């Protein structure tokens, strides 16, 4: 499959039609998705119609929009007017989006073609895409393995070459971790860089929409289109510098890269450690300056996250009560109707987090847990601010392990939560972070994470692009 940039250029130069790009994507989906299960729905007819329209416009010499003909998949929690958006949950099985999310609005205006919606952990709660109420998604590198999660469908769709690019959402690692496990690029931008309007919320202070691609430039190309302030999201930021899509950075000369010693702890998979050390060697060859740093609060990131995120998500989940959408449960009282609609509509992990969140927020525990977690989060942010005075970027493995067997961690929540141990800090601090492939262990991809300071998204992308050239791409 061609990259998004190649498709964009070929369509613009008349060497390829948008319809051809769409047909190629649909053909790969048809051939492979019955083995992978990346898509919950493919908008086949509509994608063709839109492609034909774009080709017509180009023929009539109208302006060619900047993503004309580029097929893209969206995670099932991103609203596309008139299309089902179920967030992987039975409670929203038949919910159709009443309006467009800002990211979809911007993609459509840029001429991108939305190919379908991808599988995910229910309400993005999970790290393996197994909590989806609808289907399992398999890792294209080994179909006995999970693709990671929660945006596992988007990661697998890109890894299998079904689409060049896809959108995901990242609350604690839900783009970067599946990108690592599937051997693709995944970026979580700075909190507020991309509007969250029209994404089904998990943890509102942590959620950020981001992009999967088969290379860094493709991810940057899409980010450039979807980013920027939006009147519908009060937390979206005014950007003084937009993303640079076509990054040309031959080396890392003068770039200081911090390696936090706390991220290379005992008990870490030695084979992953070796891959990361090789990547560090490549950075040295690219003339980067490697600096060992210390982030002593790192070990508190995961417990902080598992207070703030359930607290916020239990509040966000309160709107699902079977009144305005979903299935209204027949019951003798209103309260019973709520309880029953929610009890039968939500899966186990969602119930677990709602319960945890409400416990944390209940009288007597609020200060001890929620308020304490906000304080630790702020301390983690300040510690990172200090670190970014000494270094430009910070690196770590993206995931402590490669893709594991389907079913392996499913019934053990704490073990599953540990899958996000390296990615969570970026969400707590609101900083940009990317995962790029950096080798394999047992023929399964390993991801390298590069984090940057607030709004340092271009720095992160530039370093990733330089490094990507030297550590090479994964062969599927």
């Amino acid at each position, binding site marked *: 499959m061609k990259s998004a940039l190649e498709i964009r250029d070929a369509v613009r130069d008349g060497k390829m039609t948008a319809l051809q790009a769409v047909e190629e994507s649909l053909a790969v989906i048809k051939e492979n998705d019955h083995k992978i299960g990346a898509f919950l729905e493919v908008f086949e007819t509509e994608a063709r119609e839109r492609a034909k329209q774009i080709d017509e416009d180009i023929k009539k010499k109208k302006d060619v929009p900047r993503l004309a003909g580029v097929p893209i998949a969206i995670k099932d929690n991103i609203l596309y*007017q*008139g299309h089902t958006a179920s967030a992987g949950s039975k409670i929203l099985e*038949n*919910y*159709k*989006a*009443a*309006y467009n999310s800002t990211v979809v609005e911007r993609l459509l205006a840029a001429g991108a073609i939305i190919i379908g919606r991808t599988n995910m952990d229910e309400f993005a709660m999970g790290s393996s895409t197994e909590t989806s109420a609808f289907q399992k998604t398999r890792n294209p590198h080994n179909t006995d393995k999970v693709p990671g999660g929660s945006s596992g469908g988007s990661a697998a769709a890109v890894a299998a070459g079904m689409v060049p690019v896809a959108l995901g959402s990242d609350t604690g690692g839900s783009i970067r971790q599946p990108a690592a496990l599937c051997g693709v690029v995944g970026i979580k931008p700075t*909190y*507020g860089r991309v509007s969250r309007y029209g994404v089904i919320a998990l943890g509102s*202070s942590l959620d950020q929409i981001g992009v999967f691609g088969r290379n860094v430039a493709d991810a940057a190309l899409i980010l450039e289109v979807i980013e920027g302030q939006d009147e519908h999201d*009060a*937390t979206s*930021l005014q950007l003084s510098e937009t993303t640079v899509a076509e990054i040309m950075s031959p080396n890392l000369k003068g770039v200081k890269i911090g390696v936090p010693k706390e991220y290379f702890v005992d008990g870490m998979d030695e084979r992953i450690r070796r891959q990361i050390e090789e990547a560090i060697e490549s950075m040295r060859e690219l003339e980067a300056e490697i600096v060992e740093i210390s982030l002593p609060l790192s070990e*508190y990131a995961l*417990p*902080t996250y*598992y*207070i703030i995120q359930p607290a916020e998500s*239990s509040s966000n989940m*309160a709107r699902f*009560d*079977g009144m*305005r*959408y979903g299935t*209204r449960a027949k019951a003798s009282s*209103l*309260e*019973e*109707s*709520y*309880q029953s609609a*929610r*009890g*039968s509509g939500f899966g*186990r992990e969602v*119930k*677990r987090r*709602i*319960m*945890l969140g*409400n*416990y944390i927020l*209940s009288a007597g525990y609020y200060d*001890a*847990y929620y*308020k*304490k*977690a*906000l*304080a*630790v*989060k*702020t*301390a983690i942010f*300040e510690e990172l601010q200090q670190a970014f005075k000494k270094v430009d970027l910070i690196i770590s493995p993206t995931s402590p392990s490669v893709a594991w067997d389907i079913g392996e961690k499913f019934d053990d*929540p*704490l073990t599953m939560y540990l899958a996000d141990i390296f990615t969570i800090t970026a969400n707590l*601090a*609101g900083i940009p972070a990317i995962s790029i492939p950096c080798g394999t262990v047992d023929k399964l991809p390993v991801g390298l994470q590069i984090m940057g300071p607030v709004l340092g998204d271009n720095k992160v992308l530039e370093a990733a692009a330089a490094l990507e050239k030297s550590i090479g791409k994964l062969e599927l």
Partner: protein
Amino acid sequence: MSNIEFDIDKVADLSMLSLSDEERTQLEEQLPSIVAYVSKLHEVDTSNVSPKAYLTQEKNVFRDDVVVRDDQEIEQVIANFPKKTGKALEVPGVFE
């Protein structure tokens, strides 16, 4: 872990969730161990930190209160509603 008090029925009630017996048993076992894990935070001295919910420097954002009408949006909202008569949306009674 034994010092974690977790009244599962009270929390289920606050959460507006009906739980099967099996779910109840499982959650009763899992939730206190998750709470014990996150209690690790109490090791951190935060006496000099003022807790913030949002870390960005942005100020409040205001807009004019103007009605924006999108007919397709209205139709879809009605279509999603579980019970309706024409354009009237049906909800259960709130008062006994």
